[in-house]
């Protein structure tokens, strides 16, 4: 079942292998592929937005379509691109970093992926059926979302509900993995920061997503079953949606950023050849950001009219987040200080991140100043802020991580030249696109504007912004070429291409499907580095060679997700005709049946025999 073997078998077998896999490394591939696909889609939508806004009073696309475009761009990028890409990286790297053979619930891992994928596909079906995509913004404020005609918002509700359930499972899975499956000696305070970030991010997922789940249920009930949560005539209150949404969505933005903080910590230390400066402070800063992250959601609601007391409290709480984040920025700088920095593509993205994210973070603090936000709110200033943190943070981080761990994940090294070219094009394009948007906002351009008027001083800025976006697009295309090139004839990767410090670099690239032949013994922070410094260069095993227990592959996760998706279609269209209820029953039936099979049929997995392991050459 090694990679070579799968390649020799036919494409059908290859596909079947991936559809049924429960191996965290293959699930990581799936997440990267799915997330990557949606990133291109979201990027395409962004390009359409930017073309529409290239000149004043443009009519490249219609007003209704424009609203669909921004909604789908935001939703796709956040839920279907950024988060899955991050979950993919976590799947690929975290178990290796803590010396585990798999995650706690391999079956659930696969289920989580398929729920995300089907949820995303369901959401995007709205383009083709039911009268258009959702058009109430990614924030779907009621009552615009409850009154939105057609089925667009219904697709939004069910697509996110399904993919959200998948994410929640992923979170619980990582938590249990880190709690129970760390290798001997891998104490919490020896975990690499990416694993720490995975842990804290999972906590955020666990506590943030339920609020979204509830919000989506309320919205669904209002739209499909005539309840009155957001119906003012029957006593409903639309602000409830805003609270629920932001109670989820603010932690969500830290779900997007904390993992890449982990990525940058690992990369900075490795490529500066220094241990991470202030490890303990970095861990606690991560925890503190997560903790504070739950107390600040109303900074998105400063103009709702909650009153000066609430606004002040939330303003102060928000500003407090500057402190732990600052600790991180300065610790990264201090890690590099005195180091011996290798500047390759992974490091370039890291170096690009620091000033870009600092700018984004600072504009965040500016937004937190409630009275100033009365001006910024819902303008391009906010658009600029969040693209600075999300693109300059999350996307840069994902790119850094991809260049850094590509060899480990796929066994080949990405082409350096193209890597650097991608970076420079994207970096310049990014600043061109979003820097001017700060000024556009202050000059009176609200966000979600289909057109801006002539003669309002907004033409040049918007044009510059569009040009920048094209540069980014070229950068992305070159990255794609790089991926195909590497896949076809890239250099084979050694086990440890960057002189690594953590456990993942102690095993071959890509790792064998059981990860560690013998569970490693961890003797300190940066375990591989410790061994290298003591001249051994390889990890001491914690156990004698023995049988390895492995989980069985299963098609059930795919079927369960498919069932829920069919039911999703049923829910959406039963409003038009009750015959569609058949889909609801059939879909839920399929899902329940698959779950029943799962719980009734014992699945004890299988064992790789000791002899077999001995036979495999090192």
């Amino acid at each position, binding site marked *: 079942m090694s990679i070579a073997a799968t390649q020799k078998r036919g494409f059908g077998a290859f596909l079947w292998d991936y559809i049924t896999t429960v191996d965290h490394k293959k699930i990581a591939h799936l997440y990267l592929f799915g997330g990557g696909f949606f990133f291109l889609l979201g990027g395409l939508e962004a390009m359409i937005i930017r073309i529409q806004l290239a000149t004043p009073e443009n009519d490249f696309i219609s007003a209704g379509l424009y609203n669909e475009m921004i909604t789908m761009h935001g939703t796709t990028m956040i839920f279907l691109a950024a988060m899955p890409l991050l979950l993919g990286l976590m799947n690929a790297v975290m178990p290796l970093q803590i010396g585990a053979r798999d995650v706690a619930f391999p079956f659930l891992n696969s289920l989580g992926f398929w729920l995300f994928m089907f949820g995303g596909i369901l959401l995007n079906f709205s383009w083709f059926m039911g009268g258009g995509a959702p058009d109430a913004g990614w924030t779907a404020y009621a009552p615009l979302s409850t009154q939105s005609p057609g089925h667009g918002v219904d697709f939004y509700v069910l697509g996110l509900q399904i993919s959200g359930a998948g994410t929640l499972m992923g979170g619980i899975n990582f938590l249990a993995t880190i709690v129970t499956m760390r290798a001997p000696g891998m104490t919490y305070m020896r975990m690499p920061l990416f694993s720490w970030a995975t842990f804290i991010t999972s906590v955020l997922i666990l506590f943030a997503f339920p609020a979204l789940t509830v919000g989506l249920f309320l919205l669904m009930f209002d739209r499909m079953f005539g*309840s009155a949560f957001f119906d003012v005539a029957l006593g409903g209150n639309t602000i409830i949606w805003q609270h629920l949404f932001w109670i989820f969505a603010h932690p969500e933005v830290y779900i997007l950023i904390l993992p890449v903080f982990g990525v940058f910590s690992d990369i900075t230390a490795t490529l500066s050849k220094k241990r991470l400066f202030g490890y303990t402070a970095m861990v606690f800063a991560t925890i503190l950001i997560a903790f504070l992250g739950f107390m600040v959601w109303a900074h998105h609601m400063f103009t709702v009219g909650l009153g000066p007391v609430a606004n002040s409290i939330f303003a102060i709480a928000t500003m407090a987040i500057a402190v732990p984040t600052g600790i991180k920025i300065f610790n990264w700088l201090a890690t590099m200080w005195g180091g011996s920095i290798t500047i390759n593509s992974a490091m370039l993205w890291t170096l690009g991140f620091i000033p870009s994210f600092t700018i984004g973070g600072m504009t965040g603090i500016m937004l937190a100043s409630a009275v100033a936000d009365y001006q910024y709110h819902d303008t391009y200033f906010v658009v600029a802020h969040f693209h600075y943190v999300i693109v300059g943070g999350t996307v840069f981080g994902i790119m850094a991580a991809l260049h850094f761990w590509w060899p480990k994940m796929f066994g080949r090294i990405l082409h350096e030249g193209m890597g650097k070219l991608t970076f420079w094009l994207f970096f310049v394009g990014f600043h061109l696109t979003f820097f001017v948007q700060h000024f556009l906002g202050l000059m009176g351009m609200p966000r979600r504007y289909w057109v801006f008027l002539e003669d309002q001083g907004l033409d040049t800025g918007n044009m510059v912004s569009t040009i920048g976006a094209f540069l980014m697009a070229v950068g992305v295309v070159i990255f794609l070429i790089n991926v195909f090139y590497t896949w076809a004839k890239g250099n084979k990767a050694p086990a440890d291409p960057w002189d690594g410090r953590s456990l993942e670099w102690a095993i071959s690239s890509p790792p064998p499907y059981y990860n560690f032949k013998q569970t490693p013994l961890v003797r300190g922070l940066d375990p591989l580095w410790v061994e290298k410094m003591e001249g051994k260069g390889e990890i001491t095993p914690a156990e004698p060679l023995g049988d390895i227990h492995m989980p069985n592959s299963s098609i059930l996760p795919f079927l369960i997700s498919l069932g829920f998706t069919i039911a999703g279609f049923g829910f959406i269209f039963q409003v038009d005709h009750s015959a569609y209820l058949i889909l609801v029953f059939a879909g839920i039936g399929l899902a329940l049946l698959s779950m029943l099979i799962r719980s009734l049929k014992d699945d004890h997995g299988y064992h790789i025999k000791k002899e077999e392991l001995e036979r495999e050459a090192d």
Partner: protein
Amino acid sequence: MSHDHSLNPETMPQEPEKATLEGRNKFYGLWFFLGGETVLFASFFGTYIALRNSTAGGPASTDLFGLGLVFAMTMILLTSSLTSVYAMYHMKNNDFKKMQLWLAITAFLGLSFLALEIYEFTHYIIDYGFTFRSSAFGSAFYTLVGFHGGHVTFGIAWLMALMVRNAKRGLNLYNAPKFYTFSLYWHFIDVVWVFIFTVVYLMGRVG
């Protein structure tokens, strides 16, 4: 790991639910899940509290809620929590028969609770015309209490599946964690109900 982890007095670990890695994973996984459920129900409670006076001219909580039925439901559910404790007690003593018996009682109590809840809902709908669509209060009430009811239903189904599936096999290290996680889940449902009877019914009476 071999297929048979039958427990007998000689080979029984102290905490069969956590004796294997799979068991520990289930144990932690379910606990974490309950942490998330806390937020889920808090969101429903919050929505309910925000809307509990938004009756839009329809029936209000003071018109609707009687205490007798709710008291009975509460006693039933609290007792079922105790019966599942007994079941776990017998599991740790490796007394499979008694465990099954107590679990059966738990399921029966759960079903009685559900029956009363269904009766209660129909009563409101038929006698007061108070529905999910009457007002924001109606929507919030049925959603909160209904989601709890849904959790009870799911719990009963889960329990039944476990009992039937393992009826012939007896206890082993493979299924002990499953029984244990079920019992955790069941207690949590009880916890949620404690807040429901307090916040919805008792506070609803107080006005």
